[in-house]
């Protein structure tokens, strides 16, 4: 089955679009950030999927055994960094939303725009 063979990549694409949709369509700032997290999560999945080698195991050398097939460890290391970046982005984004709520008393984009037109 050609479609099922790329199952991980299908999930990646679907999650990516769900996240992007939330970012674009939602007017609630927190929901936008949730969408952003889903969007980033999809990319983590892409990286994790690509490191899989058929029949491969965790890339740990044990007792000098070099005969086994290992999965590629590099994408995992890369995506660990990207996950850290993602956490930092979400944390910073939420902190800004908290400040926005302190200033405007709302996290709805329409409310906030309406208030700024007045001032």
């Amino acid at each position, binding site marked *: 089955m050609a479609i099922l063979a790329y199952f991980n990549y299908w999930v990646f694409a679907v999650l*990516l679009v769900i996240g*992007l949709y939330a*970012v674009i369509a939602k007017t609630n*700032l927190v929901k*936008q*950030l949730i969408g*952003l997290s889903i*969007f*980033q999560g999809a*990319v983590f999945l*892409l*990286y994790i999927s*690509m490191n899989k080698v058929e029949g491969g195991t965790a890339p740990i050398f044990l007792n000098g055994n070099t005969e086994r097939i290992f999965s590629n460890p590099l*994408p995992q290391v*890369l995506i660990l*960094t*990207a996950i850290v*970046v993602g956490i*930092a*982005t979400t944390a*910073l*984004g939420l902190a*800004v*939303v908290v*400040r*926005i709520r302190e*200033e*405007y008393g709302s996290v709805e984009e329409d409310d*906030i725009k309406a208030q*700024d037109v007045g001032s």
Partner: protein
Amino acid sequence: MSIEDHLPALQIVVPLLLAPVVTLLRVRSLPWAASTATSALTFVLAIALAGQVATDGALSYAVGGWQPPYGIELAIDQFSVLLLLIISGASTVALVFGKASLDREIGEERAPLFFAAWLLVLAALCGMVTTGDAFNLFVFLEISSLASYVLIAAGPDRRALMATHRYIILGTLGATFYLIGVGLIYMMTGTLNLADMALRIGEVSELRPVLVAAGFITMGLALKAAMFPVHAWMPNAYAFAPHAVSVFLAACATKAALYVLIRFDFVVFLPHLAEHAAQVSAFFIPLAVVAFLVGSTVAVFERNLKRMLGYSSVAQIGYILLGVALLTPLALTGAIVHLFNHALIKGALFMAVVCIAHRTGSVQLPAIAGCARAMPLTMAAFVVAGLSMIGVPLTVGFVSKWYLIQACLEFGVPGYFLAAALLLSSLLAVVYVWKVVEAAYFKPRPEEAPELCEAPPMILASLWLVTLANLWFGIDSSLPLGLARAASMTLLGEAP
């Protein structure tokens, strides 16, 4: 190894290590002084590096002694040196210039953290333009973005927060697109080193993932570079950021993203993807033309001066992209030299507006009515920088427009239309610069308005330093032009 061999790494390490130190300095203007000193040191390192590249040619530095392509490589050529000079120079000038306005906007309590974020932006931008590793580039891209969100959110107006939120959303989308692209290329080539990637893409048999990656990377970086039509985050972010931050980011933040875009497209994709040249031209030329026509038109109708300059930046980025998309050595030289020149022009214009805002307390057009009589030096600098943006001879703006228009004319009839559009956009620039000049010189000062006087000497001195640089490099443009010419030759793969 002597210290000179480590210059490429010091460029990044010095500001990166001093950023946490600055958070500990909690005495009055000490954080400002420490960051200014660090930034100046980075500038000196950039000059030293420029000297090394001028004598020895392009440098390669293996971080931690791990040889490329396995380790992270810092690759420094004339193009990166030009960008390093812009970034560290802009940061230093903006810090010296911005002392008074930052004291007012940031306050003593938040200053240590604010300046730490500033140094992180500086370190990450330097990293972006020196690294030769695609994933390392993503990390630097995100460090610079995260830290600049902090800088923008520090703006005194509450609208700065919404501008930051928007920038976070769009900036993260852009960086994640870039990450997807890098992942796809890694999947096909098994390498992250840019030079190595360029070699191996030629061996890839199934090209579709690479094409998709080219699309993702171009789009992601275009978002970061505020290319039309994905520029929506930029005018508000610049308008509501603290004044000194506007000067710094307007001069170099989008430039670094453009640098990466140019580097990726020319080094990795262009020589190895058959259709890429036609695709780049077909994609960028229409967008660039619309960018400078729409950007300039919106700027004409804008009444907030900082937003006006932001929209004018959208137009200027359009010029740079046009030069990139024409793909000839002349056009690419024009585009790269405009990266440098636009930093000088927009830096000076923002600084002049900030001087006015410092005294009048407002950046709205009506508030500056008649201020030229009280602030003749500031307004004179604005006029010189404005002429430079329009592209009057003897200013830097003329040099880059001359190159771009010449490059357009090489293409025959379609090129005439491009040149005409470019000139039309310059005429629109005359209109919006004139609006400010008219208000400042020819409108009477309202009766009830407070008395004005010239900005403090340190601010004025740094404003005029940049303004004179506009004239200096307009008359003797050999330094930026030489670097730009060498850079475009390397990028197009021709012997200099």
